[in-house]
């Protein structure tokens, strides 16, 4: 530990010497930080259907599957998604609303599922914290409705339920909502992909190879 401590002091000392002519005093640090000009777009211009349309377009651009639903028809929408894939066994985080767990499906509720058990399911159904239309990004803060990270990582199919009220247009709008800062975040923009071989985009490497979203209209 003593060795580590001396290295720490040495490195910090070198940094302090190197920046002595430009560094601010600790008391002015916040002030200087706040003074950084941020002239970029913070608030989007789209509302309602237009904002949702942009999100859907961007998600489809990543080859994610997107369906729309009303609140009343959500059960049906989930049912037809599962039927289309012949998916009968699904993992869900403990905190999803009971209405999402439609009958005639083998729901594996995550109360400490092992990795091997998660691997075996046909897919996973979760909610989300937020979605960003501009970049087609779904944000998970891994709360009880979004599940721990392994749950949305190991299955080959991720079905995510999003509400229109959760959709923001720009990334800065998300950061305004994400206060206080979360301890765990996964930003998901389409299914996993690679372009490492001759820049040919291949969908689906290690994360879920398929991503589906049901966008529920909960706004007027």
């Amino acid at each position, binding site marked *: 530990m003593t060795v*580590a401590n001396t*290295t*720490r002091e040495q*490195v*910090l000392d*070198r*940094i*302090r010497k*190197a*920046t002595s002519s*430009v*560094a*601010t005093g*600790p008391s002015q640090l916040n002030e*200087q*930080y706040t003074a*950084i*000009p*941020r002239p*970029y*777009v913070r608030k989007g211009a789209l509302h309602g259907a237009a904002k949702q349309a942009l999100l859907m377009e961007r998600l489809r651009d*990543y080859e994610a599957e997107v369906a729309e639903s009303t609140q009343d028809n959500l059960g049906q929408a989930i049912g037809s998604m599962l039927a289309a894939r012949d998916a009968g066994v699904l993992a869900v985080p403990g905190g999803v609303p009971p209405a999402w767990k439609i009958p005639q499906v083998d729901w594996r509720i995550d109360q400490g599922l092992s*990795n*091997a058990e998660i*691997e075996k399911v046909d897919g996973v159904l979760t909610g989300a914290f937020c979605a960003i239309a*501009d*970049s*087609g990004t779904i944000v998970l803060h*891994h709360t009880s409705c979004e599940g*721990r*990270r*392994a749950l949305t*990582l190991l299955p080959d199919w991720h079905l995510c339920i999003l509400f229109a009220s959760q959709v923001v247009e720009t*990334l*800065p709008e998300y*950061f305004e909502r994400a206060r206080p*800062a*979360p*301890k*765990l*975040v*996964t*930003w998901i*923009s*389409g*299914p*996993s*992909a*690679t*372009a*490492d*071989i*001759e*820049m*040919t985009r*291949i969908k689906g*490497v*290690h*994360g*879920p190879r398929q991503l589906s979203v049901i966008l529920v209209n909960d706004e007027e």
Partner: protein
Amino acid sequence: MSQLAEHPVLDPAKAPPFPQAALPVLHNPQLRKNVAHAVDVIQLKRARLVAEKTDWQELRSAAAAIRTHTLENLDKYLEQFEARCTAAGGRVHWASDASEARRIILDILREDDARQVIKIKTMTSAEIQLNPFLESEGVKVFETDLAEIILQLGNEEPSHIVVPALHINRSQVREIFAKSMGRPELTDDPRELTAAARNYLRSKFLDIPTAISGANYLIADTGGVAIVESEGNGRMCLTLPKTLITLAGIEKVLPRFEDLEVMLQVLARSATGERMNPYTSLWNGVVPGDGPQNFHVVLLDNGRSSILAKTKERQTLRCIRCAACMNSCPVYRQTGGHAYGSVYPGPIGAILTPQLMQMRFAQSLPYASSLCGACYEVCPVKINIPEVLLELRSQVISQEKRSLRRLFDPLYLGLRAAGVIFSRAWIFRAAQRFGRIGAGLFTRKDGWIHSLPSIGGKWTQTRDLRGFPDKTFREWWRERAAHSSRESK
């Protein structure tokens, strides 16, 4: 594998000078084709998505300002990061140089009795030559990024910082995979090759309890770490193991969580030409019940603090490793990455590598540029690379001036001779006469010199030189004056 470049050593201390290292590539049409194809595709995608952003220049300015402010106050932000990360259950280590970082990582692995590790792509680990060190200490390393698997199994070195295997085409990847995975039936369909990598790694993700990663950003106000990726191999390594070791350069810190609203917007567009990369993960220390319960961060200096001390060069450390500069560079396009003799190739490598080496090695790299400025134009954090290149060139010259070698170096002999010649008019006139006679020997009938011997060859290797005219301007002027005065009489 005969088509690939000879296995290069990406150690700036051992690498040959850039012009020499570039030659084999210039004579390898397959390699040049692979590189040109890759950078063309990325540039096209980047240009389309940058054009879509109405506030691109504003985002660049903000990104540059955030990075500048952070570097100027780096000690305070690093201490803040350390305190918050430690409070969240992480353990922070400091490493002065590569060997100290390697030793810290090995000690952590020994503590866990770890014989195998899975790794997320990290150029910083390549900088400290971590893999060969761990292998020599009996730890088996499994790279998990597709490009890194190709390199590891093919015994190749990275040639780009975002798509490190861009110099290898699909049939070469097939050859590597067929041989090393024992799967001769594989075709060269990228889809099939990607699936082969997935199968190869699946059990390793589930079974190996120790992972090593780099970091895209360290967040000072939360103690969090963010990693940006595409394939999901990152999420696997960050989620499934019991122990995670993150190696990060000291410059990787950002003041606040919300600074990501700028950095994430500029990074994906610049790096891969996407609106957003498929996956970005962020975690604060240890989160009970989710992910590794044993988390270490190794903060690496390795020459960075010496860069910080210099006003013009400090901007080098703003870099967020997007590689837009190399994609846009006309020199990189021709030579690929290996010629730079460093894990950091291209324009950013040309300024970063010699500085990380504290100007003791890689002095040829600041000259590996035409100073066209394309790199500066695309840089999302506005690093004025040409300005730093020029500054480093002047440092190389001052170094050479101090060395004894200059007494015998033909270039310096020539420059000293020129100094004498230009100091007196009569010497200059005499030199012109001798020069005309000398150059006459090499001037062809078309009036051009196509090849010169010795040091002059450096010029004529790549361009032709006009032969000396029959008379100098002064001679012509005198004759003309004499002629016209005769006529007027």
